[in-house]
């Protein structure tokens, strides 16, 4: 099968793709697939995680990531077989704080004293909210790297994909700098917080929401979109993940659901296919088919609600074999063919 030509990309202006979603929807998988989809010919993409789970390392089957940008995969190849590069970064608050202090302040001996006094530990563990400030700060740095900047060895990225906290917490996470700006009326912290907020609220950022076609996640997606809009944060697309296989046509689904399938015809089909058949097997297959058809109907109801949000949507199948490198590339191709890029 030849791949259909890629649609023109939906997000050419976006430098920062934030990926959120309810727990259990496969948010991290989708973030990784988006990064692979964005890494077209000659492009460099950074995939960041901030929740300390080493999910990227596990998905790509590599050693746990340090606080350092690592080459992790080639992007999904285009028709000519060419692709770009995906790097990954595991951001932990403590390293981000130390790096931030070293980068912007020449503290010298005082820097060490901060650590001895427990300031670093306090800031990254006890003080609520500070973690989020540090995590978003590092992402901001990676997005805003000047081409040919101070450090020659630093990669400049065409896009950064952030595997962000779940939908229930995303407004708080992305809004933490505006809280901070309210506390620091002047000074360096205020300036940094303002710069981060203006990036996050600009068209250079898109917050994508991952959902599955079930009631609670779809409701949460809708609530999340409303919250993001109210906070002035740019809503991107909705990625519908883990979609059930489309093995039956619409008419077949209706027949199965309404018990209009003749067991005799299934029996004769199975015989033709050289399956050792009895009535129990036929009844089981029809029962399983009915379970499936009922769930597909529920999915369709939720799909209509997703469409009503009026933002670009993408669908990814549930892969029965689970997620590995190959599966991620497959998902990335599917995203690109649906116009993600």
């Amino acid at each position, binding site marked *: 099968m030849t791949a259909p030509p890629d649609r023109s990309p939906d997000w050419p202006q976006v430098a920062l793709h934030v990926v959120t979603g309810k727990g259990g929807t496969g948010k991290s998988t989708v973030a990784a697939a988006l990064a692979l989809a964005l890494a077209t010919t000659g492009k460099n993409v950074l995939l960041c995680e901030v929740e300390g789970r080493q999910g990227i390392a596990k998905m790509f089957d590599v050693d746990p990531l340090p606080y350092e940008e690592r080459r992790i995969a080639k992007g999904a190849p285009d028709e000519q077989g060419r692709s770009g590069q995906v790097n990954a970064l595991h951001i932990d608050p403590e390293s981000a704080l130390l790096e931030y202090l070293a980068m912007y302040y020449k503290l010298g001996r005082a820097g060490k004293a901060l650590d001895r006094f427990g300031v670093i530990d306090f800031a990254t563990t006890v003080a609520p909210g500070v973690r989020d400030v540090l995590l978003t700060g590092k992402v901001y740095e990676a997005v805003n790297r000047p081409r040919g900047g101070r450090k020659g060895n630093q990669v400049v990225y065409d896009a950064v994909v952030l595997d962000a906290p779940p939908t229930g917490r995303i407004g708080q996470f992305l809004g933490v700098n505006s809280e901070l700006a309210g506390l620091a009326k002047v000074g360096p912290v205020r300036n940094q917080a303002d710069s981060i907020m203006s990036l996050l609220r600009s068209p250079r950022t898109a917050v994508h929401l991952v959902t599955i076609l*079930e009631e609670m996640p779809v409701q949460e997606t809708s609530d999340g979109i409303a919250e993001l809009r109210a906070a002035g944060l740019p809503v991107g697309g909705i990625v519908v993940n883990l979609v059930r296989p489309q093995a039956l046509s619409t008419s077949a689904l209706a027949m199965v659901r309404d018990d209009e399938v003749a067991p005799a015809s299934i029996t004769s089909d199975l015989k033709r296919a050289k399956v050792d058949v009895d009535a129990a097997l036929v009844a089981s297959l029809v029962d399983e088919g009915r379970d499936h058809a009922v769930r597909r109907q529920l999915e369709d109801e939720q799909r209509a609600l997703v469409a009503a949000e009026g933002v670009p949507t993408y669908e990814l199948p549930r892969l029965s074999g689970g997620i590995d490198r190959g599966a991620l590339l497959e998902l990335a191709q599917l995203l690109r063919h649906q116009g993600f890029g």
Partner: protein
Amino acid sequence: MRPPVLDIDALLDDPGTGIIVCCGSGGVGKTTTSAALALRAAERGRKVVVLTIDPARRLAQAMGIEALDNTPRPVTGIRPMVEEGAQRLSGDQGSLDAMMLDMKRTFDEVVESGASPEKAKQILENPFYIALSSSFAGTQEYMAMEKLGQLHRDAARDGTYDLIVVDTPPSRSALDFLDAPERLAGFLDGRLIKLLLAPARGPARLMTAGFSLITGALTKVLGGQMLRDVQTFVTALDTLFGGFRQRAEKTFALLQADGTAFVVVAAPEPDALREAAYFVDRLTDDDMPLAGLVVNRASPSARTDLSAEEAIAAADRLRAMDSSSLTAGLLQLHADRVRIIEREQRLRDRFAASHPHVPTAVVPAMASDVHDLDGLREVGVRLADQG
């Protein structure tokens, strides 16, 4: 190898079980599990209160707790079980109250009960306090434990409840509350707090060389105004810290005691089970009483033993004759279902191999979301029925 079975009814019926804490990563059905456990316990004769963090709207409505007022409210529609064994605890009928955690309200109450009215007013109006209590990550975990401690004290005093079921915030940091007492102690005994309190306490003898070095650095990074605001805030809170720490230590001891049972909730997915393993290890390290693992959302079992490979081969043969064959579609769906079941089984086996002594209950997925008491009751039946 099969792990031991988690006997939910034995856990709920044991009068020694006073607190059940449900923890696990987000999206695994933790809130639903907490509510289902609480309902089942109540219908088996216990006097239960369930503390939820962020229930789905319709579930909250069904339980009558959509108004967020930080007070337990009775749930109507409890149907005492008549089966053998239930209600053997007492002649009394069970009851169920439910509440949703209001993080800010809980924090405000801590301030109001711990400080003089003028001081409390000063704190409640402080911009740092407002940000801290309403919008910062991490506060929820502390407040959930604060509320648990409160409920437990009230229940012990008034005999209102004999079982408290707690849902925990949906993040890895859900277990951060285990560290809270130690962290607070480290902070309060540390030098940073002395530095922050120095201006209020005045004596210049505190201003050693190290102190001025730090103050200089902090001023440079935070700016003078912000550092002063932080100092004002910490000074205002100073009187509360002791009480807060004391209660955190008490809650920690309470969680470690025999009357508590931790239930780790997961789904048969690699991420959720990995998180569950992390929770189990963490609880074990801290000597916390682990009751077992609940694996939610398990795929329904296949109804025939036709293998995935046979089904796919047969589907291919049929499609070669008729590309729109319905039977081929059914075979393909069966193969997909079998593969998913096999994968889930492998993941569970892997967990069991590394944690062989953790009692486990597997709960098949419901066809649709749970948003009423009947749904919760059905989850309860599935939790208890481990065939």
